[in-house]
């Protein structure tokens, strides 16, 4: 009955005192000599092992996949799911608690929170973890329903009513916005609309209200989350949303109503971007966007949500900067494209700028030269570091007439060199911000067509999924370092293989989404990815993004930008190390799927 068994070590922290006692009563301690097999690959496990001291290697097909250390445990899969495959071998003198299978299985059934740790799917595990954290920080506010926020009442007025009538109705109902019925449409009129009409435009008080209201009303459902409302406000630059319930308009949500619940201010940023008159005006806003990333993270908002909010704001920023820096000739003919992680909407902490310019026809050479220089340096001034691969507007191969660009794409596919696979990948994630988005649509159409034209082209493209893996060497080495003092590169070991594999599938299946999670969703929807694999990939991706954001913020804080994707396993909790193992296992399975699917063995 070892008292020294650490009941605070997850997942045992989910057990109550009586359950811990049951466990303690039943456990033994095993010693394993270096090289001794603790769990054989082809035999069902009889114990759940928790390492007291020593080091254990998880091997699969003769390769070391993970190294486990004190407090790590193995192996939930072998014990509960009887999944064969992994072999656990003592790498040095190792002592383990031996928790008998029967007791552990019984506890997983009687205690769901404990049982969650033994789920075989990382996605379910993460859900279970998230439940445990509910009510913490702002996450709970963002996850609050719109109905929980303070709503303005839904007051309707006829479109033919006068401005004066509207003002009275507002006063009577203590609100500063009304719904306006006009034929089949419903608009919104605000106190500010009325004031501007009367004071700025000298309209008479008898003017029908339909002339001063606006009809581009954005609506949310009462059961939607606050975060949905916040995203809509940010995206549409609205400070007010109509709120529906069962299809009926029941109220109005103002940003101030959310502010009561939530401490952020991302909905105020678009207005500031819109009002900016110079690059200098944008500078503070740009740094606010960045500062917000850190704050939202501290408040416990999930990395994928932070990325979504940040991308929306950054795209507005890019669009505005384009307006401010481009000469008329380029404004009318140009399409600014944002590529790479920014295009996928997955950039939180700025790493570099990947952007380009497509123009519908020739423009004056001096305009182009001046703009290339100005735009790239302006972005740098706003805190977006230059792209080391020079994939920027200032590089002529990334800013040219669309026809030439399409010819160039075909060249990249047909006669690849060492850079072209990266170029194609970055371009595949491009989105257009601001004007003339059809130019990018044409370019991407061409990219999709030429890549899908011949299997070998797509295979060449997909091949990069192995870029950081070698032939079972590099990635395995990275995985093996989990549990050691060496840091592991999350981008190379996990994020890139998922992003690129999914990107390859997306091109093959003609998926136009650019975000990795959105692509996964769509691919699963059309049956190109199995539902289970899709869920696991999404879970693994979210978890890796979360760790990445943490390492990025740490790297910024310590002024060590090279380490932005590095994470030291020793700085993770036991639970996080376990999840990281799961995530990397998913990545490995997925890479094998990609290899088989695109027939990469032939290379």
């Amino acid at each position, binding site marked *: *009955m070892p008292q020294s068994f650490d009941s605070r070590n997850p997942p045992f922290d989910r057990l109550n005192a009586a359950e811990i006692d049951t466990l303690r*009563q039943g*456990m*033994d301690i095993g010693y394993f*000599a270096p090289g001794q097999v603790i769990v054989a690959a082809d035999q069902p496990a009889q114990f759940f092992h928790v390492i*007291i*001291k020593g080091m254990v290697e998880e091997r699969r097909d003769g390769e070391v996949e993970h190294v486990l250390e004190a407090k790590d445990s193995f192996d939930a899969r072998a014990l509960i799911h009887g999944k064969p495959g992994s072999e656990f071998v003592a790498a040095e003198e190792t002592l383990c608690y031996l928790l008998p299978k029967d007791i552990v299985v019984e506890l997983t059934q009687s205690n769901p929170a404990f049982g969650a740790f033994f789920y075989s799917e990382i996605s379910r595990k993460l859900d279970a973890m998230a439940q445990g954290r509910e009510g913490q920080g702002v996450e709970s506010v963002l996850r609050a329903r719109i109905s929980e926020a303070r709503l303005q009442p839904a007051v309707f007025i006829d479109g033919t009513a006068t401005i004066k009538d509207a003002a009275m109705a507002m006063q009577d109902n203590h609100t500063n916005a009304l719904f306006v019925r006009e034929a089949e449409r419903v608009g919104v009129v605000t106190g500010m609309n009325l004031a501007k009409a009367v004071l700025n435009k000298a309209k008479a008080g008898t003017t029908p209200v339909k002339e001063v209201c606006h009809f581009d009303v954005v609506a949310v459902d009462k059961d939607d989350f606050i975060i949905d409302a916040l995203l809509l406000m940010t995206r549409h630059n609205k400070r007010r949303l109509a709120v529906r319930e069962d299809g009926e308009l029941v109220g109005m949500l103002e940003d101030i109503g959310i502010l009561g619940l939530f401490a952020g201010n991302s909905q105020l940023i678009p207005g500031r971007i819109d009002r900016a008159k110079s690059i200098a005006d944008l500078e503070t806003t740009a740094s606010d966007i960045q500062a917000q990333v850190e704050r939202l993270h501290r408040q416990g908002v999930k990395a994928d949500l932070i990325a979504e909010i940040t991308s929306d704001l950054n795209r507005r920023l890019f669009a505005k900067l384009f307006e401010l820096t481009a000469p008329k000739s380029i404004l009318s003919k140009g399409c600014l494209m944002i590529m790479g992680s920014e295009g996928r909407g997955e950039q939180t902490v700025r790493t570099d700028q990947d952007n380009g310019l497509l123009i519908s026809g020739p423009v004056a050479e001096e305009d182009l030269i001046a703009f290339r220089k100005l735009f790239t340096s302006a972005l740098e001034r706003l805190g977006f570091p230059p792209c080391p691969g020079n994939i920027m507007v200032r590089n002529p191969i990334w800013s040219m007439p669309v026809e030439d660009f399409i010819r160039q794409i075909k060249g990249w596919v047909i006669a690849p060199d060492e850079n072209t696979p990266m170029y194609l990948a970055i371009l595949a994630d491009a989105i257009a911000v601001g004007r003339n988005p059809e130019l990018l649509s044409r370019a991407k159409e061409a990219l999709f067509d030429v890549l899908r034209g011949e299997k070998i082209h797509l295979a060449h493209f997909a091949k990069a999924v192995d870029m950081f893996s070698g032939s079972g060497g590099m990635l395995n080495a990275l995985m093996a370092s989990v549990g050691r003092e060496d840091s592991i590169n999350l981008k190379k070991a996990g994020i890139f293989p998922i992003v690129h594999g999914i990107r390859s599938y997306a091109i093959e299946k003609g998926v136009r989404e650019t975000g990795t999670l959105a692509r996964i969703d769509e691919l699963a929807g059309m049956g190109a990815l199995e539902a289970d694999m899709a869920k696991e990939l999404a879970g693994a991706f979210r978890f890796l993004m979360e760790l990445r954001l943490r390492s990025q913020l740490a790297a910024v804080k310590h002024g060590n930008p090279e380490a932005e994707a590095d994470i030291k396993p020793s700085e993770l909790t036991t639970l996080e190390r376990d999840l990281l193992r799961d995530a990397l296992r998913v990545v490995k399975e997925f890479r094998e799927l990609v290899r088989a699917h695109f027939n990469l063995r032939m290379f």
Partner: protein
Amino acid sequence: MFRFIRHTIDRFVIQDTSFKFLYDRDETGEVVSLDCETTGFDPWIDDVISVAAIKIKDNRILTHQSFNALVKPEAEMRPEAMKVHRLLQRDVASAKPMAEVLPDLLRFIGSRPIMGYWIDFDMSMLDKYVLHHLGVRLPNERVEVSKLYYDRKYGDAPQGTQLDLRFDVIRKDLKLPPINQHDAHEDALLAAKMYVILKDMKARGVRIPRTAGIGGVSTGAAPRPMHGF
């Protein structure tokens, strides 16, 4: 030789024949890790106040069937000892006297070898009671864990090498996690962990390096696979 003769005689003088099993040949192949907490360090004056015993079979420490008992002391608990084991008079007041604990303990141990840290002390504490109740001393073979450590660490050391055989020093040297010392069960468990490690090192002919002082244990096994790039 002396022990053998004494045991042979004891076998016949044992007062309670139901304990003759102590002289049976051990066929379990198990070892028992034993630790006593006492009111002090003089076996003639002081009493056992708690005792823990854990069986070890091969490389497995059978904690799930360990023996743990608090004992009501006959002698007064002395303040200096209380500071060590942190058991107060009132903690042991409700415990059973040794006369009731001993039969269960002896049946638990059987004729298995008894292992521990400074095991002679624990054994002489127990022998006081065993002698009183059965008229003999415990015949079980003794295994001293610090001796196993000494062999691995200093067995080939030149004369004059400084020895350090303290319990906590051995623990650190074997990289075992710290425990609440002076809890009989925890102490017996720690000794058991040391025992399985040291016994295996002996079997593999591996020594503990002295140069690093407290530090790494050389595995001496095949070099670990490289994980580098």
